[in-house]
Every structure is written in structure tokens, then in C-alpha cells.
């Protein structure tokens, strides 16, 4: 469980919020503060005031798997194989095991042939998948995903969702502009100008958005 108390940072103002384990979608208009909040939750940015705790502890940078919305900013290394191996190298995993796990991870996304390529030669979608694999390879308990899905075609999105759901992460928090995807998550948080407008299950949150374009389109078309 993540608990936020009296949080203030830039435009973010949250008095008290509990984010239970499981899957949580963070939604809101462009500029509502989603990325800022995700970075705070990942421990990448300390809040000015207030606290965020994960199971009662302060989040440590590097413990959560994090996929940045700017795929080019994820990469630390030029070669895809090195980028994928980095989280394991930082944990001093033996070379033989490391190489095996890198090959297996790349194969789960059909990217094994791209392992020797440099990151800048991957397509936009491939960079996003590479960042996701890199976040997953160390089996983090918390996975934080910043709108990576808008760079993926439908089949690649299904693949990515399977990778996420089979990752074993206790909690997945993502922001997305795909409301149909958000509607499949256990919990939805609506952020508006840095404040939590609504939080609850999709069935509790989305009916209030029915008159807006934020209402899941498949609900509108098929329900």
C-alpha cells in the first residue's frame, strides 16, 4: 500500500491518498501533473513537503521499475543489450546468468534480433518496449509507467500488457490517455490541476465523466 500525506510539490497538492496494491491508472488532461506525481511515487523526486510511504517506508530511487514518457531519456547505454543488462549489472548478477536473462527478456518482446543495435536506431515503439523490458528485468515490486502505451500498436500493446501482468509486480501505477485501458485497471485516480478529483474503481469514477471525451469509448459503443 502506498500512502500520501500532505503532499506539496510544484502544482501537486494532495492531502491524503491511499493507493492499494494492484493496478492503478492515473488519468487527467495534459499538464494536470501526472508525470510529476509518478516521479514522486517512484522516489525519483523528493516532495517539498509531506510524505509518500510504500508499505510504511520511504520509496528509494532505483527500487521501482520506471518507464519514462520520453523513451530517449530512459536509455543510459548506447547498445540495446547493455541497456537491458544494466539493472542486473548494478545488482552484480554473474555474467553468465545476466546474458541468459537478457536474451530471454528480449525474446519475450520479439526483440532478440535487435540486441546488438544501438538504442538510437530502434523505432519509437521499440524504444518503449526496450524501456519496459529494462524496467521489468530486475522484477521490481513497484512498476511505474508513464504513458508508454501511446507509442504502441494494438498487438504490441497486448504484448506489453501480458509482460506487465506476468511480471509479478505487487503494484502497477501508470498514467495513460487510453481510457479503455484505464477502465481495465483495479483503481482509477483522476488528477486535475495537481489535485485528486476522483479516485475509486472504474465503475465508480467513469460514470461522472460520461459527458466528456474521457469516458471509455468501448463503454460508449458497446454497453
Amino acid at each position: 500500500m502506498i500512502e500520501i500525506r500532505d503532499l506539496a510539490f510544484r502544482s501537486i497538492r494532495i492531502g491524503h491518498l491511499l493507493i492499494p496494491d494492484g493496478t492503478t491508472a492515473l488519468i487527467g488532461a495534459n499538464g494536470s501533473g501526472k508525470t510529476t506525481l509518478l516521479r514522486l511515487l517512484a522516489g525519483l523526486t523528493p516532495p517539498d513537503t509531506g510524505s509518500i510511504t510504500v508499505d510504511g517506508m520511504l520509496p528509494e530511487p532505483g527500487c521501482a521499475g520506471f518507464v519514462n514518457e520520453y523513451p530517449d531519456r530512459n536509455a543510459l547505454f548506447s547498445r540495446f543489450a547493455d541497456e537491458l543488462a544494466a539493472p542486473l549489472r548494478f545488482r552484480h548478477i554473474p555474467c553468465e546468468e545476466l546474458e541468459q536473462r537478457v536474451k530471454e527478456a528480449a525474446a519475450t518482446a520479439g526483440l532478440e534480433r535487435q540486441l546488438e543495435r544501438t538504442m538510437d536506431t530502434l523505432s519509437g515503439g521499440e524504444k518503449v518496449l526496450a524501456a519496459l523490458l529494462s524496467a521489468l528485468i530486475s522484477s521490481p515490486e513497484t512498476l511505474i509507467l508513464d504513458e508508454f502505451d501511446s507509442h504502441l500498436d494494438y498487438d504490441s500493446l497486448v504484448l506489453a500488457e501480458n509482460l506487465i501482468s506476468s511480471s509479478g509486480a505487487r503494484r502497477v501505477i501508470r498514467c495513460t490517455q487510453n481510457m479503455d485501458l484505464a477502465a481495465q485497471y483495479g483503481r482509477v485516480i483522476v488528477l486535475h490541476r495537481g489535485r485528486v478529483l476522483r479516485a475509486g474503481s472504474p465503475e465508480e469514477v467513469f460514470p461522472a465523466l460520461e459527458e466528456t471525451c474521457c469516458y471509455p469509448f468501448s463503454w460508449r459503443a458497446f454497453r
Partner: protein
Amino acid sequence: MKLSLSAVEWHAGSWKFRADATFTPGVHLVSGRVGSGKTTLALLSARQLQPDAGTVVCEDIRSCTLSFQYPEYHITGSTLYEEAESYGVDPFAACARAGLAGRDEEDPFRLSRGELKWFQLTCLLMRRWDLLILDEPFSALDCRGKLAVCRAIEENRGGIVLVSTHEQYILPKTDFLWEMMSGELTLRGTLPDAISTWESAPALVRRLREQGVLPANLTRDDILEAACRMHE
């Protein structure tokens, strides 16, 4: 007005791009899996990349622009005002249209990704283009931004518009449907017939197709109308 790619080939290692295509005025939607070659097509069409074989010929095209997938690649100004001026559009009008009224002195890199994308596309779409190439215009935009971009694309009628996208739910009215498959460009045809053979169709379109219902086009209204027919 015509853009022709004749027997075009381009290589990156063992990966090969191939296209033999003619783009006439109208909205051309290009879909395909990640890494299939959509950005390569955009770059070749905008002559930002030289083909290894074949020719790219523009006929009667006097103005052309390319919008990159990542908006930060476009930034040249240190404020939104300067950035809008670099496109030759009114900075105050551009800020207002992109929902950023009164923020013209802000550094573009202080905006969120979605705000920056909408601002960059707004600047671009405030002008008319004979050839407008948009690589993933909908990524990072919220639904209001996506709908505004669709409206602007439809207002650019008369020119050639190439839209490469993975967007699943908010698409412009489309004249021609193309698909990139492992580096090869294929014309699926005009709407609605092209939907029958569209391999990388969005989830809702697949669902309708499986029920034997084809939407007349790809806009939200078209999808809703087709869904109503499915329920009848």
C-alpha cells in the same frame, strides 16, 4: 498535386524498406506494428532521408512539412512566443488554441509532453500545407487535443496528408488506408472496403468487423454508428 515513391528501397543493416506508392490529395492513414517502417516512410516522403534505390518525386507540391513523433525534436525557441514565431504564426493565437493562453513567455521544455505536443501541432496546423506529414500526431495528447488535431487535419482538405499512427480510438476521416508490414508499404484501399483487409486495425474496428459490421469511416461518430447497427 502528387507524391510518388517509385521502387523506393532503403536499408538499415539487414532490415529493408520498400515502397511503390502514389499519394494524391486526401487523408492517407498509415498503420503498422512498431518497427515496421512508418517513420522511415515519413522521412523518405519529406525527403529527410535519401533512398538507396528508386525515386521520390513531388509534383505541384509547393509547401511540405513533417511533424516528428517526439515534439522536443522541433524546439528552436527559448519561449513559446519564439517557438510560434519560428512557424510564422501568431504566438498569442497559437497559445490560446493549444490551451496555453497567457503562457507565451514560458520555456517550451517546462511544458508537459502532451502540452508541448499540442502546442507544436497547433503551430504547424495553423498553416496550410500541400504535403503535411504527421508521424504519430496523437501520442501523448489527451482526448481534447486528439479531437482538435482531427478537426485541423480535416480542415487541411485540398492537400496531401500522411498520418502514421497507432491511435486506437480517435482518428480523422480517412480517404486512403495504407499498412506497413515488415518494411513493405501496402495500399489497403479506400474506406470502408479497406477495413476488411486491415491487419493492424484498432481493437474496436476488429470487434465490429468480427460481427460483420463495417463502419463507413474511422471517426468516433462512424464507430458509434456502426456499433448501433451491430446492436440492431
